[in-house]
């Protein structure tokens, strides 16, 4: 694969006369920046450059890819594989180099978060608080010693979707699901797929827990193929129906607090306690053969009597699975439209590995495409990626609750994806509403902080020092660190990963 050379690049849209005039306005804008936060900080000289010991920010007109330099390589890895970085994390990775950093990220054993108080005992009497749940996960994202595992947990959360509205907070299911996705985030995709299928939250979200052989519910059967493994157009409606029969027979598990609630409610209403109501010992679905389908069906071309594992094995035999998942991974971690030969190469190696997720991800990050110019700034940060990177840049892990509460306004409340297809991606994160709410998050966060870290060379650390003319002018003309942080964190450059 011949890599396009940087030297061949000619500066393109050179600033037009009009743009330069606007640019001149930028300097004036820069003066006004003084009070944009309402902080009333007044710098000694409004035209003061950045940290006097560092060079002024140099405008590059175009964002010429810096990915041939080791510093930019590790920064790209940290932005994409770990929700962004603190200055210290950046410096550690810089010392280690790309390969060692990647090894560390992938091979660090998955750290288990501390329990969310009360979540295991959730019932209709004591539901889980959604903000507490979101903050609990964000705390883990911000502080976990296995940040890549958190990033993959988040990826699977957007792939194998469920939302707290339908799953409800009156059972531990949505909390358990997060633990299960994390535990299986870097293992075998086939194992993960089984855990997904029998996950109590998923049983409820896509109705498999209601499906019986006598009256199969097609919801899970369809999305299992269409969204989770094979992709649209790779199966027939008959396969959906056959799959629904073949998968039927699961029910949601009951916990003791859930049983206690049901008994108490019956007593309250003067009804006898429901019969045979006992808590299950498992945290996964319970299979009841009496509710399953008896008889053979034709599923994906094979006629026999099926069980859940056979269904999943049959799916994993389909040629569509590896390219489908690989495309989604590349779109999340490398580029919006990966060329077919790239997808096929990575997919083939993944299939050969027996669908080992670590192998897939290592191949993705070590692929030459990951560091090619076309990959540079080719992905838009999701709201969570953006806010976590901001919290890291500002050394402010205490922001987890603020982040949890700010996501919805930008289109991403954790545990509440907009649809079963998961989160938007890249360009679809960019709307007028979301651009405004992103900027406002930066403004209010900076305004609310008692103490900010010194800006120093933050533009180098976080955005490789590759900035547009207006960003450079504004940074150079900003009078103080709060203003510099505002320009950096609200800049278009920082929205990309």
């Amino acid at each position: 694969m011949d890599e396009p050379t940087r030297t061949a690049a000619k500066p393109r849209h050179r600033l037009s006369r009009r743009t330069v005039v606007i640019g001149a306005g930028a300097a004036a804008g820069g003066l006004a920046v003084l009070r944009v936060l309402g902080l009333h900080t007044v710098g000694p000289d409004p035209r003061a450059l950045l940290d006097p010991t560092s060079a002024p920010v140099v405008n590059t007109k175009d964002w010429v890819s810096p990915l041939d330099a080791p510093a930019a390589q590790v920064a790209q890895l940290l932005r994409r594989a770990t929700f962004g970085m603190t200055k210290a994390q950046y410096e550690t990775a810089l010392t280690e180099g790309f390969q060692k950093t990647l090894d560390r990220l992938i091979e660090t054993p998955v750290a288990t978060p501390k329990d969310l108080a009360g979540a295991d005992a959730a019932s209709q009497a004591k539901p889980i608080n959604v903000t507490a749940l979101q903050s609990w996960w964000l705390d883990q994202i911000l502080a976990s010693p296995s940040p890549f595992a958190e990033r993959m947990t988040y990826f699977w959360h957007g792939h194998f979707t469920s939302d707290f509205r339908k799953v409800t907070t009156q059972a531990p299911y949505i909390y358990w699901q997060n633990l299960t996705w994390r535990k299986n985030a870097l293992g075998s995709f086939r194992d993960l797929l089984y855990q997904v299928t029998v996950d109590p939250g998923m049983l409820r979200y896509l109705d498999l827990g209601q499906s019986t052989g006598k009256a199969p519910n097609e919801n899970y059967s369809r999305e299992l193929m269409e969204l989770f493994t094979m992709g649209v157009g790779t199966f027939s409606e008959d396969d959906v129906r056959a799959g629904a029969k073949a998968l039927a027979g699961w029910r949601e598990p009951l916990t003791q607090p859930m049983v206690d609630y049901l008994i108490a409610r019956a007593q309250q209403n003067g009804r006898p306690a429901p019969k045979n109501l006992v808590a299950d010992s498992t945290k996964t679905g319970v299979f009841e053969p009496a509710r399953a389908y008896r008889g053979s069906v034709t599923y994906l071309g094979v006629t026999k009597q099926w069980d859940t594992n056979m269904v999943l094995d049959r799916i994993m035999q389909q040629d569509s699975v590896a390219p489908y998942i690989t495309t989604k991974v590349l779109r999340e971690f490398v580029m919006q439209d990966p060329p077919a030969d790239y997808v096929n190469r990575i997919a083939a190696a993944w299939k050969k590995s027996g669908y080992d997720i670590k192998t897939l991800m290592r191949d993705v990050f070590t692929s030459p495409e990951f560091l090619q110019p076309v990959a540079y700034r080719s992905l838009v940060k999701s709201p969570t990626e953006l806010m976590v990177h901001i919290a890291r840049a500002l050394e402010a892990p205490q922001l987890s609750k603020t982040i949890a509460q700010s996501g919805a306004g930008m289109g991403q409340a954790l545990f509440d994806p907009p649809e079963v297809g998961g989160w938007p991606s890249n360009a679809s994160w960019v709307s007028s509403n979301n651009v405004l709410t992103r900027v406002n998050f930066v403004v209010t966060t900076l305004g609310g902080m008692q103490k900010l870290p010194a800006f120093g060379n933050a533009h180098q650390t976080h955005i490789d020092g590759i900035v547009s003319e207006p960003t450079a002018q504004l940074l150079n003309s900003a009078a103080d660190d709060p203003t510099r942080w505002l320009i950096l964190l609200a800049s278009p450059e920082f929205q990309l990963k």
Partner: protein
Amino acid sequence: MTMQNIGIDKISRRDFLGKGLVFGAGVRGLAAGYAAVPDVFAKAVYSAKSAGVTNDRVLVMIQLGGGNDGLQTVIPIGDAKYRDLRPTLGKEADAALAIDKDHGLHQNLKGIKSLYDQGKVAIVEGVGYPTPSFSHFDSIRVWETGDPTRRQQDGWLGKTIAKNYDSAGHPLVGCATGTTSTPGMLRDLQATLTVINDQASFKFQGNGDNVDRVMGTLYTGTPGIYGALFDTAMSTVRDTVAQLKTSAAKYVPKASYSDNQKLVFSSKNQLAAALQLAAELIVTGTGVKVLHVTLGGFDTHYTEQTRHADLMTYLDAAVSAFHQDLTAYGMADRVLIATWSEFGRRPVENASGGTDHGTAAPVFLIGDPVKGGLYGQGPNLAKLDPSQNVGFNVDFRSVYQEILSGHLGLDGQDVLGASFDAIPFMRAAGS
């Protein structure tokens, strides 16, 4: 799968040939779709357009997300098969609000029934498209783009805006309220449109005016494949913030909007608030032409009766308040409300007291300019297809055609790619 791909590469590629690329992506990069958008592109396309506002009509699309069950909305009360196929859900026939001996509206659509009785509701039955997809995402895309072959990327309303309205300085020509992202129907890079989730917070925080100015500078000439998208979004934000400042001061709702509807699963969308903001934008003369709002939760595979009934109440109350508000402001004769949903649901009820993905379903067209009544043809439950679904009787583009030509006064052909027989549910102007 992603239904969210915006056709950036397409537009930028076309525009960029001959202008070169950033990042030295070269010819290979171009082939792969990694062309960049020039900094001046975003604004230039708007100023190139001629003024094309031909009338003062406004369209409000309401998406019923998840696949609304048409048979529970317009109930075939005279059809015994309906009760046979739906042992639980079929009981709704008894309580339905009859509009004739064969049709009844769901009992919770009392406000819409009252509008129907006033001749302000057209119901087109049996609306669908050939070889229906049972995938939410595929079928949503069909309805959004107006293209059953699923080749188009841009939304039919985005195209409508881009082709017909000069939106320079008018960010609200196309507007989605009560959501954070651009709905697929409005998607078109050459259309200016704004998305307002919550009006009260749609302003710059901190020292707002200064932040506003600084962001205007910061988002200028942004390089890269998303540059124009970001710059356009920011310039739209600034225009919208300015517009909302004046419109909010001129508007007091003249109806009671409430999102306190009890639902089995809480709603992601605040439909009443979204429609209230829509009313504000319409009555304060912001130049809005096309609005899009969403109510989700219609994917009723399970315990449908309660869930669907609650959604009907919610929809009915929000639409009724909206119509009442517009009427009080003397604007009701300009506004068409149209519902859409990716598909209806299977006639036979499943064992979870719900229904699975189906095909054709009725579309509602509500408002004073509508010629009320029943159009199209309802489902034949005695003759289901091999997938146990009903066939479609009206191509959904025939509904779009009438919206474009009968309501907005536009030639629909450039948007729909062909001419479709319009279903004549709009009154002739002035009648």
